[in-house]
């Protein structure tokens, strides 16, 4: 096989095959991400990727970029430090629903509040894949998980609504079925100033699909296709997810607000006047 898949140059091929299961949507998400950065206008040397722990957390380890596999729930504050030390970087956090919204929820809402200059991609597979399929804050009501064996009875987060209320300037949701739209959204998110958020609904056939009789990865992808509706600009209040219900996709929020660094510059320039050297990172 002499022809080489163009995505390979963005992958650490010396680590293939990856650990993800057959039919897992994570590889598809990685494809979307690679397509997003290919023509986002930033050279790859300038793009850093930060993940937490989980199946999704492994994304950082497969992408051939400066990439950081941190601790469970903490990729956003790591990314915050990275970005602030070197504002020239485009820092993208890719992590799982559990990582970003269970243990890591506080960091997300604070980064959104501050409008920190980061892109956060949450791969929402409705479960903790890596640890064996437990309940997450996105598991729909009634879904079975290894820690909700009688069906989940905790209301899940509506992530886009939460993201908006916390302050994100760009909020979109797609499924792994929507490869083109997802790639475009991630690109737009990266180009955005401030905190941008993209939720990618993704199949975890092994631990979520099988247990909930949703079939294999392909069956789940087909369900995404059939059950999704694209409503750009939808009110985020209305886009909560049910078990097997409609998945509203689209770009929900795209607004302009000065980012953390913008605000920092304005404040300090005003205060120090000519004595303020615009902060351009620590070097």
């Amino acid at each position, binding site marked *: 096989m002499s022809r080489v898949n163009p995505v390979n140059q963005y992958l650490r091929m010396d680590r293939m095959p990856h650990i993800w299961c057959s039919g897992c949507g994570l590889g598809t998400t990685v494809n979307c991400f690679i397509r997003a950065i290919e023509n986002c206008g930033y050279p790859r040397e300038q793009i850093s990727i930060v993940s937490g722990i989980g199946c999704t957390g492994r994304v950082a380890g497969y992408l051939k970029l*400066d990439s*950081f*596999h941190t601790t469970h729930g903490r990729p956003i504050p790591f990314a915050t*430090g*990275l970005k602030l*030390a070197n504002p020239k*970087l485009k820092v993208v956090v890719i992590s799982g629903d559990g990582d970003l919204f269970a243990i890591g929820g506080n960091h997300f809402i*604070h980064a959104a509040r501050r409008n920190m200059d980061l892109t956060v991609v949450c791969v929402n597979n409705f479960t903790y894949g890596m640890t064996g399929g437990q309940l997450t804050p996105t598991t729909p009501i009634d879904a079975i998980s290894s820690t909700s064996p009688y069906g989940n009875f905790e209301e899940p987060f509506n992530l886009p609504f939460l993201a908006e209320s916390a302050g994100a300037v760009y909020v979109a949701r797609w499924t792994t079925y929507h490869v083109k739209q997802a790639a475009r959204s991630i690109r737009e998110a990266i180009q955005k100033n401030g905190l941008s958020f993209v939720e990618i609904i993704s199949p975890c056939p092994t631990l979520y699909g099988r247990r909930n009789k949703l079939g294999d990865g392909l069956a789940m992808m087909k369900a995404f296709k059939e059950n999704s509706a694209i409503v750009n600009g939808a009110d985020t209040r209305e886009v909560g997810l049910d078990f097997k219900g409609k998945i509203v996709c689209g770009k929900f929020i795209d607004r302009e607000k000065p980012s953390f660094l913008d605000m920092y510059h304005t404040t300090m320039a005003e205060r120090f006047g000519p004595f*303020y050297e615009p*902060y351009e990172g620590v070097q």
Partner: protein
Amino acid sequence: MKADPKGVLTGAHFLDGDHACCEGALSAGCRFVAGYPITPSTEVVERIAARFPSVGGMFIQMEDEIASSIAIQGAVWGGAKAMTVTSGPGLSLMMEHVGLAAMLETPCVFVDVQRSGPSTGLPTMPAQGDMMQARWGSHGDYEIIALCPNSPQECYDLTIAAFNLAEEYRVPVMLMMDECVGHMTEKVIIPKAEDIEVTPRRYTTQKPGKYLPYQAGRSEIPLMVKAGDGYLFHVTGLTHDERGYPAMNAEAHDRCVRRLVEKIRNNARRIIRLEETDTADAEVVVVSYGITSRVAGKAIQMARADGLKVGHLRLITAWPFPEKRLRTLASHVKAFVLPELNFGQMFLELQRVIEGKSSCYPVPHAGGTVHEPEAIYQRILYAARHSRLKDKKEVAR
């Protein structure tokens, strides 16, 4: 390397330890601080918040200590020298990331201005109760370096030393202050920038493609890169190989963790700083650190006034512990006395390393204030009277 004059406040100042720590960080080249307020460390970050913007540094108050303790690591991998500042309850929350820093070999500084614990305890009062936590608070095996200043001047000096050691060994360094030194104001002399020695980050000179993030070579310390320079490198808190890639087996783990431990243990001699007075012919040696060393100093004066031969060994570096030196001293000293503001922490180490060759006496104290010098003095007296020189030659009197 010499310090960057920007940020070095050369001159004589009347500063408290917290503020001196801020100045030390500036002198050391620290330009990123993430923190979360907590008594009695808050003044460090308050000064930083005021000082950093005009010297090209970035301070961010994070949502909590967990975020602070990993934001600094992101900043380090972005090229900054970085630290965070806290007190006991915050340090407890940072423990996962002390382990991460050890595993990623992120050079960074954790400042702990100790207050009385456990739990919320006495937030505004001194203690030295986090000494074992500093060494052992995270899960798994790792090593750190811990320094104990006993004055605002040392808060300044040792903050610089902490950054330098962090860079040299790529290890998290804990600056173990306490409420008393943190809130005590004394003269602090800040030298000229050109008189301040600063250890620069050691970056690789290898080309992207060649460079392996965890290839250590003989020095045991791998060279770094930073994000944005084209190395397209990967680091992970998982057990990893020289490429920085996860390596999920016991052999890789042994290679990975053994080096983390040995780079400190094998270099202990170079890392350790002590201050010894009159230990050569001492019958009793007081071992102390931090604020307690000053109280002990007063007690020693009292004992010497009684004609007792009392030496003083002050731990400037608490971790790694000066095992060798103490074992040597144990071979000719009758007894050790170790006062500390806790119910026996470094004392356990002392007891361990002297292996019964001398007597040793703790002077425990719950904290909330410092010892009465009298209490330490009495213990010295007791030690001198009740200890015998065991199977060692009597020292010349």
